[in-house]
């Protein structure tokens, strides 16, 4: 049995066009099975039965790629039904069949010969019913969308992810476990780690681990109930490389003594992971004074980790390619809700069609395999670190940016990705044979020019800041040629950790945006369905502007377009009128790659990254704070932590204090919060220039309060010099932290 596909021959021969929609009305909670309805706009006789011609109008079905910023258009489908016999209307009060939303609908197409031959129908669209509205004369107006927009709730795309949250009830429900519990982490998303997260790998200050660790209760090990459990990840990891305390790598001799780490000496468990309360985790254990300090939040633990691997128990291969990480996250944590065990499979539609087209991910990955000197895009990052909750939609945009990808839904209702300039030839459309008269348009979009692309990469999760922020890729040629500098919004590359990849992404994006885009629209017959979004069609049309065709052929002057490649960004189908409208982007506007790029440096501390303690001191409150200190022309980043200060009669660095290297000179204002446990005992705070071995100006704040008091310190800093925060006085319970503001 052959599979029917639309072809130009249908329109040439004037064959019968046979579309119909199948509505699978699943009973509520599936207690009464599924009743299937089939309708068309003409009464159809198929091999397996009759399809009633009750559809009075087919709504246009549209699918599109996400835009350059990850925002995608929901795939929409709809029809108007004349329910004159009240087959559905009378179910509106049915106990089991009165709920119509979140049920599946599939549109099929055959032509006359294919029907006679018994061919498998072509799936034109698959979606989930979002709404059914009554209309005049027993009409019902159906609206359906892709599964991300409708499946779990009407606001699925707005669901906050990660779903798994740190819960005291899971980790420390009763008294013994509570000893190691920190209230400040309740409700935090459980982090998901991808790639190699290690400072040592990136040749920066290796004092600090890449991944924050959170105290989540105590556990009895070998009869000792005082082991504090430190959460690293919400799954098994390939390897925990190094543990840091307060920014210092722990002595290896401590493993198996007062620190238990998977893969290290003395780890007492048979697996590198721990299943707790039905969920899988990567944790380390610590006991002793440092454990107490961790729980109190006066010191911090961090780790260098190799994250998710291919199996789910730590034994597989580290997942390093960003496209593979994207697919893995979407399957297990986006659509799926991984808890424990082996990784989840891609969820399917009722007919077993996977809801994600994994082939699109491998195709996209292959298309960029030659980038970064043949390494492709290798990435890593943490989903959900530092209470980072985002909507599903925002996470898709985040992944798309790090992959230089766009996403959408194909006709099978599958989620797909397409890399930025992936070229998959699909269809050749000509003015003579294919393009409906008057429908071909090429519209320049001068507002689309972006010749300055700011981007940030290498997220430092302990510091909760970018290691490189707002670096800019600039096309001087475009700035000069169009007489204006057009800066794009910052591309935050959350899963990119190296300069080469980040700059490659920025370069490709700049390449596509440095000249005005040309939007192409045309209409053709139903064979236009063969042009899936993200594919390329070649267009031959005498009205096409220009003649250059470096991709395929070089046409003679005066002929307009000859097989001009156009990336299909949007497909709109009208079953009622048998037309497919394609909207796309003219590749030819691109100069040969690579463009000439000038780099404007971002904010990078000289040789160091930032470390941040977590948790709270005796004063309570939340963990680390990231501060932006803005001066002209650039921003500075200074992160610090709450910290316990011991009584001191002389100025001392705030423990776990963060050094600060401004990249520009000028005034800044710090907000410092401080208190003392002993009223009447003063705590002084100042900014100290390590380079010059001197305090900076009048940079002192004094407090005698037992409650937290915020003060401002105004200082003038000089670029390239090292500064620290210092305190004087107080007692064992005093704590300070600094927040910079502008």
């Amino acid at each position, binding site marked *: 049995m052959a599979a029917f596909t639309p072809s130009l021959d249908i329109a040439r021969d*004037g064959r019968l066009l046979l579309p119909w929609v199948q509505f699978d009305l699943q009973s509520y909670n599936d207690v009464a099975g599924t009743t299937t309805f089939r309708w068309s706009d003409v009464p159809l006789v198929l091999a397996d039965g009759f399809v009633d011609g009750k559809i009075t109008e087919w709504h246009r079905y549209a699918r599109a790629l996400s835009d350059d910023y990850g925002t995608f258009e929901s795939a929409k489908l709809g029809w108007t039904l004349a329910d004159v016999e009240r087959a559905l209307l009378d179910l509106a009060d049915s106990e089991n069949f009165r709920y119509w939303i979140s049920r599946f609908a599939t549109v099929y197409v055959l032509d006359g010969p294919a029907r006679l031959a018994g061919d498998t129908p072509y799936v034109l669209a698959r979606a989930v019913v979002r709404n059914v509205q009554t209309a005049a004369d027993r009409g019902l107006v159906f609206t359906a969308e892709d599964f991300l927009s409708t499946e779990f709730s009407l606001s699925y795309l707005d669901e906050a992810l990660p779903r798994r949250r740190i819960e005291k009830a899971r980790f420390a429900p009763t008294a013994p476990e509570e000893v190691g519990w920190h209230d400040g982490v309740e409700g935090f998303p459980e982090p998901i780690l991808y790639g190699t997260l290690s400072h040592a790998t990136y040749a920066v200050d290796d004092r600090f681990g890449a991944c924050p660790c959170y105290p989540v209760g105590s556990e009895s090990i070998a009869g000792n109930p005082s082991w504090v459990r430190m959460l690293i990840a919400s799954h098994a990891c390939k390897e925990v490389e190094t543990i840091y305390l307060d920014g210092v790598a722990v002595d290896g001799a401590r493993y198996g003594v007062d620190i238990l780490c998977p893969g290290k000496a003395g780890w007492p468990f048979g697996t590198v992971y721990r299943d707790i309360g039905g969920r899988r985790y990567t944790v380390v254990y610590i006991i002793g004074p440092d454990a107490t300090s961790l729980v109190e939040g006066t010191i911090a633990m961090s780790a260098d980790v190799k994250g998710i691997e291919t199996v789910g128990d730590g034994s597989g291969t580290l997942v390093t390619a960003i496209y593979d990480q994207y697919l893995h996250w979407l399957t297990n944590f986006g659509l799926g809700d991984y808890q424990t065990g082996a990784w989840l499979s891609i969820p399917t539609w009722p007919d077993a069609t996977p809801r994600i087209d994994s082939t699109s991910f491998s195709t996209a990955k292959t298309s960029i395999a030659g980038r970064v000197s043949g390494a492709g895009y290798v990435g890593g990052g943490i989903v959900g670190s530092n209470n980072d909750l985002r909507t599903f939609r925002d996470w898709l945009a985040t992944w798309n940016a790090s992959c230089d990808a766009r996403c959408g839904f194909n006709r099978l209702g599958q989620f797909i990705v397409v890399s930025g300039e992936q070229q998959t030839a699909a269809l050749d459309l000509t003015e003579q044979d294919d393009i*409906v008269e008057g429908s071909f348009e090429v519209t320049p979009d001068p507002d689309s020019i972006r010749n300055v692309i700011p981007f940030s990469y290498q997220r430092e999760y302990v510091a909760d800041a970018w290691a490189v922020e707002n670096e800019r890729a600039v096309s001087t040629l475009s700035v000069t040629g169009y007489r204006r500098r057009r800066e794009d919004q910052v591309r935050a590359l959350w899963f990119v950790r190296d300069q080469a990849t980040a700059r490659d992404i920025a370069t490709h994006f700049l390449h596509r945006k440095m000249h005005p885009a040309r939007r192409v629209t045309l209409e053709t017959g139903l064979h236009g369905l063969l042009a899936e979004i993200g594919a390329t069609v070649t267009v031959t049309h005498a009205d096409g502007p220009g003649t250059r065709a470096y991709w395929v052929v070089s046409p003679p002057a005066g002929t307009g377009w000859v097989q001009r490649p156009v990336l299909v960004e949007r497909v709109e189908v009208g079953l009622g*009128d048998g037309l497919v409208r394609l909207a796309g982007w003219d590749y030819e506007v691109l100069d040969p790659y690579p463009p000439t790029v000038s780099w404007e440096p971002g904010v990078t501390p000289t040789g160091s990254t930032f470390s941040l303690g977590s948790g709270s001191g005796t004063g309570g409150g939340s963990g680390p704070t990231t501060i932006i200190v803005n001066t002209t022309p650039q921003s500075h980043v200074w992160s610090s932590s709450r910290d316990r200060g011991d009584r001191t009669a002389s100025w001392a660095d705030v423990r776990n204090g963060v050094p600060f290297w401004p990249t520009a000179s000028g005034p800044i204002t710090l907000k410092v919060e401080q208190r003392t446990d002993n009223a009447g005992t003063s705590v002084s705070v100042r900014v100290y220039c390590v380079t010059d071995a001197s305090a900076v100006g009048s940079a002192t704040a004094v407090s005698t309060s037992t409650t937290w008091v915020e003060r401002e310190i105004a200082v003038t800093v000089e670029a390239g010099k090292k500064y620290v925060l210092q305190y004087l006085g107080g007692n064992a319970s005093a704590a300070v932290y600094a927040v910079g503001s502008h």
Partner: protein
Amino acid sequence: MSNFLYCPPFENQAPSGTWTASPGLASGFLAPWVADSRPERPSRLSAQNGYWNCDFGSAKRVDVLAILGHTLSDGCTVTLTAGATAGATTINHAITVPAARRDGTTRPFYVVITGVGGYSASGYRYWRVTISGNSATYCQIGEIWLGRVITALPNGLGRGATRSEQRLDVVHLTNRGVRLRYDRGVVLRQITATVLLTSTAQLTAVQDWHQATKGGLLPSLIVTDDTDRTDVRMAVFDEQRQSYVRKTMGVHEVTLAMTELPGAV
């Protein structure tokens, strides 16, 4: 001179019978669909040949048989049998299926059986339509009309009667005039004519007919030219409003505008 024949919906006996089929039905099809006044919803047998059987429960008069929306091959045989018992052949009348049209659409056909051997105005309980010699892939009929009586318009169609035919499709042109065309597979025949009614009885008959269709909701069986056995169709009035123009005392003129119900595609 040809006559315009009509059979109002209340004269169609077929929906009141109990229908079965042999040797069986194709998956997804039902036997009663062959007599549900919906020619677009056919009944299909599980084999290329076989029969549909109707049991009225008691004897009913049938003067006219019409077969519409079928897929039978040219020249095969449709045999109408009827009798007091199931399978009886008191009436045993064979009809040759007419050749299909040039566009491949099969032709409906009808036969008035008042002159057929075994005919009785009292009718029979069991009626059967048997297909033999069919070589088409499917044995499928959209509608079997068993009319109690069929009536001729007494004065025929007036001068200027218009018959039209439309095949539904979708057509677009490229810049070079090349056509992108999708056939919808639906052919609609339509007739518009004026009819002179020269007596009160004639007027009443037409009024009854229109009322029986509930303003055009229910289909009638019409034959616009009784010299052509393939001219039969199930049709509905185009307008809900039916007007009768009094020309002179006892003489009325009425405009009939009717469109055929399409069969299944």
